[in-house]
């Protein structure tokens, strides 16, 4: 279960500025290679896709594998095209999607 996404944006930005967007979400990112204490394999359960949209336009996408650490942290850069709101979504192996929207303070 992916919970409590955290987004870090600059307090304010001007159109044309290059900003860093940092995202963090709570998730076990179970690899599927581990075994429980009875020796039974633990099923793979990871977030396999991350998509960031700004003003309804896709600005960054990441396909994640089991080699990404638990509680995946992702950071990318973006040139601010104008005012808008970020929409971040994480999709899990079970199809569950966690969505978080964060407005960007464009001055």
């Amino acid at each position: 279960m992916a919970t409590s996404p955290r987004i870090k944006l600059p307090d304010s930005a001007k159109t044309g500025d290059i900003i860093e967007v940092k995202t963090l979400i709570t998730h076990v990112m179970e690899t599927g290679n581990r075994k429980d204490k009875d020796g039974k394999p633990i099923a793979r359960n990871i977030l396999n896709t991350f998509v960031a949209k700004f003003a309804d336009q896709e600005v960054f996408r990441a396909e994640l594998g089991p080699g990404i650490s638990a509680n995946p942290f992702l950071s990318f850069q973006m040139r601010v095209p104008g005012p808008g709101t970020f929409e971040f979504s994480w999709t899990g192996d079970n199809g569950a999607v966690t969505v978080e929207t964060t407005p960007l303070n464009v001055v």
Partner: protein
Amino acid sequence: MLKINPRIDPMIKPGPEEIGISIVSRRAFAVSASGACLASLLAPALTPSLGLAQTSDIPALTRSPQFEEAFAKLLNGATPADGKITLELPEIAENGNFVPVTITVESPMTAEDYVKAIHLLSTANPVARVASFKLSPINAVARVQSRMRLAKTQDVIALAEMSNGTLAIATLLVKVTIGGCAS
């Protein structure tokens, strides 16, 4: 002058008869020794120092077959160029479960010339493809950060796909103290 006994010198391969002798004597020892259990208890305590001795003279790192397969698929016959990517990872990762990674690709990131994708690959994890990042000119700077798992000491590879179809590569050796449990 120190004389080396050929029978105990590890640099000299023992002949077949000598191997036979050593096996027999070890068995005889194991059977006769009343402290066999004690010896097996001591063995794990000795292994860490052996492990260190092995990593200090790192042999050619083996790359897993499934890495080679995934890598060949991404290359698709092309030869990637060196030098355009800066791959930042700790030289020694104490915890293989949690290794910060930063990839920066030199690119003007204009509509004509930009980085389309960055692939992060591990040469010795159970799954070679750690992540693929899709970029476009709006990113302005081709830099991504994340945290990855490393099962053991290995080469980490970043491969960038440019908008004109060329590839760039960067390889970095990371020594891992405690492996990330079976990524």
